[in-house]
């Protein structure tokens, strides 16, 4: 958590990014404390990537204040970049080089000696379990392997801040879990993680604190638990009805839950005690095809805050 005694690693006030007439990031405020794992959660086009690119000094700030590691990206980009690691949304591995060469040359971009770059490359290949592929070309690697190599590459300068833009998008569950495990280890070593994601489980797994972004603005801030407490109930009762048998009159759900959401095939009732709500509805004669009580998740918060309609 950000405290007054510890200066923020990233500090943003009124941070704005515009592309012509389009506002990608609209006056957002946030602070990231050292050692914290901080997430930007939001649908596609919410402004997450634009924000992370500004932090990574590859996108000029249009307006507002941004300091990274206490420095101004406009004036000190090379010094900031020397201390951060970046995992971009799309892999930018060097296809003309081998796996190990990718790491060595990246270390050289950071002015490491050849020997030191080689030493760290070997160490990092072990860390991301790619030691056996050191001499392989990049092209034939699987998506998960490329992602791991990208993460290894981002660590070559032993960064104090790691920026990850949708690190696990497009990966299968095994690859995701392996990545999460590696990121968790980095976090334990004290590396500050800043990540964007639209996966709720990823945010819950990795983030101490997160902001929900929607339409270029921050709409909520807190730990996953705080957000659930603030924007959802403890439990959710999900009722599924046969296609033509859903209750047409919504008033039948009155008073059972703090919030009711009627979807084409389902009704979601947000209540602190889902079982109790189910009992009351049964007494009122509601007969769903299936009935399920589950804990509220970040996904409920997310959908409440950013809406259910598909944003492209």
């Amino acid at each position, binding site marked *: 958590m950000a405290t007054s005694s510890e200066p923020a690693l990233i500090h943003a006030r009124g941070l704005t990014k515009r592309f012509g007439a389009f506002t990608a990031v609209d006056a957002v405020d946030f602070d990231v404390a050292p050692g914290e794992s901080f997430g930007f959660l939001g649908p596609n086009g919410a402004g997450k990537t634009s924000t992370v690119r500004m932090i990574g000094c590859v996108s000029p700030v249009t307006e507002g204040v941004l300091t990274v590691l206490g420095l101004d990206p406009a004036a000190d980009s090379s010094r900031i*970049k020397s201390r951060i690691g970046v995992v971009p949304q799309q892999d930018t591995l060097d296809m003309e080089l081998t796996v190990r060469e990718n790491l060595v*040359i990246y270390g050289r971009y950071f002015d490491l000696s050849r020997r030191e770059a080689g030493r760290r490359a070997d160490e990092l290949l072990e860390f991301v379990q790619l030691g056996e592929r050191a001499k392989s070309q990049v092209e034939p690697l699987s998506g998960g392997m490329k992602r791991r190599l990208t993460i290894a590459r981002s660590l070559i300068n032993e960064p104090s801040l790691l920026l990850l833009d949708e690190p696990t998008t497009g990966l299968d569950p095994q690859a995701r879990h392996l990545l999460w495990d590696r990121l968790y280890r980095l976090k334990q070593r004290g590396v500050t993680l800043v990540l964007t994601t639209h996966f709720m489980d990823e945010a819950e797994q990795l983030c101490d604190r997160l902001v929900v972004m929607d339409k270029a603005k921050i709409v909520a801030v807190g730990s996953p638990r705080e957000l659930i407490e603030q924007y959802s109930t403890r439990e959710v009762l999900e009722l599924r009805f046969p296609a033509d048998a859903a209750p047409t009159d919504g008033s039948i759900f009155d008073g059972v839950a703090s919030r009711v959401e009627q979807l084409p095939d389902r009704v979601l009732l947000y209540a602190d005690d889902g079982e109790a709500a189910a009992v009351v509805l049964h007494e009122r004669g509601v007969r769903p095809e299936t009935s399920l009580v589950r804990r509220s998740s970040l996904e409920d918060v997310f959908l409440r805050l950013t809406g259910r309609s598909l944003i492209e």
Partner: protein
Amino acid sequence: MTSLSTIAPAYQPGTRAARLIERNVMVYRRTWIMLVSGFFEPVFYLLAIGFGIGGLVGPILLPSGEHVSYAVFVAPGLLASSAMNGAIYDSTFNIFFKLRYAKTYDAMLSTPMAVTDVAVGEIAWALIRGTMYAVGFLVAMAFLGLIKSPLIVFAIPGAMLIGFAFAAVGMAATTWVRRWTDFDWIFVVTLPLFLFSATFYPITVYPEPLRTFVSLTPLTQGVELLRSLALGTVGPDILVHIAYLLVMGLVGLVVVDRRLARLLLK
């Protein structure tokens, strides 16, 4: 914050360009055959045109009243045009691929490397390759007995200057290329330059005002520069050729720097 930035040395743009060259050396260690092809291209032209066609042409009369064989006459022209072709090749296809597809530069810019490092590094790399070809070509000329003036050693920096001018402008043009077929526009320019820049015959072949027009085109400047060195007919106009190519390269470099910043730092 301010105290920190005053203590630490200011970063000098362009100083990490050597890292990009190092990266390209790593790549070419495996694809060295491409280097070989760059050497043979002008040598093959020299054999085919200098000696093949040259046998039919007979000696060439220089403005000094002296006669030289056609091969001696055409060799510096071929060196100049291959310096152009090599530079254009390196600074167009290769750069386009790295810029638009491989995202090589995006990856570099996430490190302390800056846009100027990329611009200077790629152009310097094209120059290094061009220099190797020029040295190889001169050695071939020596073997074929085509060296007339000791001044020809200065044709190596001369070829580098041509390479610099065309690499910078070629890379600048590439920043506007959106798809592979757009490259045809670049070759619509470079092919006539190759053929008509007094490469294969003296510029006096052209009637005025065509002669003045041709003499103002960039490859003609390069051909005249190298030819005057090769034939030992250096006059004061050599300074004009040098200044022309130098300005062309520097303007290209500035444009590349700005365009890359625009494309990569959005």
